[in-house]
């Protein structure tokens, strides 16, 4: 019987390093020092964070090598936040998820319990290492004179936004427009619904993720205005030149808190909890906060970032999901569940009529 023990632990080590290159895993398995075996983490994230995590992963790999001597490779997957959550529920082995909103992580908790229910209290700031908001991106010179949310509901304006069923950014977009009209009408929910319906009547196509909508707007040249993550709007201007687009900051928007967490079931199975936890904690360090601000996300600790980066963010009135909508569970039930407000107002192809 005792002969089985080394065989088993070797297999466990092999499984532990399975994500890394095959030979590296074999070398790791034959060595007694477990910390030296290269490790791979999978980060399943939402759509616009591709550039951000490329920089963060590089920085963390360096940080982790210096700290523990272990080589870590972080693989990322990007897509609409809701769709990514669905994949994790269906079995995509993510060590950590970094999604667009808490509701999508709650969905993973509720469907199969791969993440502990108390996830949001495990890291500072509701487990959001940065925040962002929703702004409007228009073509250079603002030919359609779009100044605020109210202009999106006017007839003849073509609005690009992704599908709230699959995209987290799209849900923030939807709720930001809703919050604007609530504020304007002193909390009249019926008016807010009619207002958002008027906006979605102007939407010709719903992409599955925020990046899909951005390429629709900037590459395919569809639409007069893109409702976008602030970081996504700034990135478009940086990538395609300030002579192509203008960013319009609306009078009111929503405080978007994209949260992060380890996927308990996966890290416990793969034996990667320590490094996955360190990866997420790293996001709160001054070094990471600086990278976050450089990539147009609003850092949790602005004092750690380059002041010039912070100065780029305009001041605007922000409502929160908890104050305005009673948290994600309620917002989901009221607006995005089957038959809720979005299903009631949106009919595909309405914009072409």
């Amino acid at each position, binding site marked *: 019987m005792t002969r089985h023990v080394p065989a088993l632990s070797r297999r466990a080590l092999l*499984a532990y390093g399975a*994500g890394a290159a095959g030979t590296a895993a074999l070398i790791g398995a034959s060595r007694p020092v477990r910390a030296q075996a290269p490790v*791979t983490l*999978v980060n*399943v994230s939402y759509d616009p964070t*591709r*550039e951000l995590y490329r920089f963060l992963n590089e920085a963390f790999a360096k940080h982790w090598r210096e700290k523990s001597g272990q080589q870590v*490779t972080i*693989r*990322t*997957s*990007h*897509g609409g936040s809701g769709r990514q959550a669905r*994949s994790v*529920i*269906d*079995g*995509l*082995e993510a060590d950590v998820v970094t999604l667009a909103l808490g509701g999508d992580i709650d969905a993973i908790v509720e*469907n*199969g319990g*791969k993440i502990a229910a108390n996830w949001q209290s495990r890291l500072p700031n509701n487990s959001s290492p940065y925040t962002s908001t929703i702004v409007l991106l228009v073509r250079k010179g603002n030919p359609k004179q779009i100044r605020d949310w109210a202009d999106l509901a006017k007839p003849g304006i073509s609005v690009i936004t992704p599908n709230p069923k699959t995209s987290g950014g799209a849900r923030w977009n939807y709720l930001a427009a809703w919050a604007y009209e609530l504020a304007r009408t002193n909390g009249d929910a019926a008016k807010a619904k009619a207002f958002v319906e008027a906006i979605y009547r102007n939407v010709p196509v719903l992409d599955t993720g925020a*990046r*899909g909508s951005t*390429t629709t707007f900037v590459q395919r040249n569809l639409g007069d205005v893109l409702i976008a993550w602030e970081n996504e709007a700034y990135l478009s201007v940086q*990538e*395609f030149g300030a002579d192509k687009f203008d960013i319009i900051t609306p009078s009111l928007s929503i405080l978007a808190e994209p949260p992060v967490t380890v996927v308990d079931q996966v890290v416990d*199975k793969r034996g990667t909890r320590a490094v996955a936890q360190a990866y997420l904690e790293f996001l709160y360090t001054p070094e990471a906060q600086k990278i976050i601000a450089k990539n147009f996300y609003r850092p949790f600790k602005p004092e750690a970032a380059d002041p010039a980066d912070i100065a780029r963010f305009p001041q605007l009135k922000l409502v929160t999901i908890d104050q305005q909508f009673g948290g994600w569970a309620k917002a989901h039930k009221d607006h995005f569940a089957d038959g809720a407000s979005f299903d009631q107002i949106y009919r595909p192809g309405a914009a072409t009529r």
Partner: protein
Amino acid sequence: MSDVSRATFRSPLQESLAVRWLLILVAVAFLALVVLLPLAAVFSEALRKGPEAALAAFDDEATWSAVTLTLTVAAITVPANLVFGVAAAWAIAKFEFPGKSLLITLIDLPFSVSPVVSGLVFVLVFGSHGLLGPLLSAWNIKIIFALPGIVLATTFVTLPFIARELIPLMQEQGTAEEEAALTLGASGLKAFLTVTLPNIRWALLYGVLLCNARAMGEFGAVAVVSGHIRGLTNTMPLHVEILYNEYNFVGAFAVAALLALLALVTLGAKSLLEWRYGDALAGKSRH
């Protein structure tokens, strides 16, 4: 008089010169617009910033991982479908058995189902909450969001190519030659290897080439079961989409060009065989 009548009379099978030219022009213009232009665009976009910029896309471990994955998937899928396709075509063309028409319908099924649905089917079967999900996770076996799932989805989508190529040909050929071989004392296996296989070799090759091209290019079904993990579960078509979405247009088109080149190599091999063995193929293939 006879000159005049020759000039005005023409065979009812012969269209006038103007109509013939018009038809040729329409066909060529259509091909140029639908096939040549996009293909040329892929290469010109890839080389827009010079060959160095295009080659830079291949100086990325994630790109090579995608190329390797795509070739691995094709290397597993094509032989699997080869064995299945020959066996199914053999059974259908040479034997009578109950449920034969059902088998033919099943072979055609992947053609009529949307690739996205094909992918979802595997999620429903092998996903954490699928039919076999709990069993697989208890045994620690990964199917979807890993190589096996990608292979399964690709095999499903490309399943009809070889069988469909062989069935009409084998039916046309009948069973007379095999029967002769058997009466002369050949075993079933020997009859298959020395009589059936040589008769179908060109159609088989066609089927393999088509199957291979589709296996490397499949997007929809693979997108559903891949999980899109860069450097792990991204195939070439998925990697093209990722690069495009990251505003790396030259890189996206460079990888697309490589994918197109792989397809062109396949097509080139097919043309070469046609040219080399044109006569043998003419009577036996439907393409």
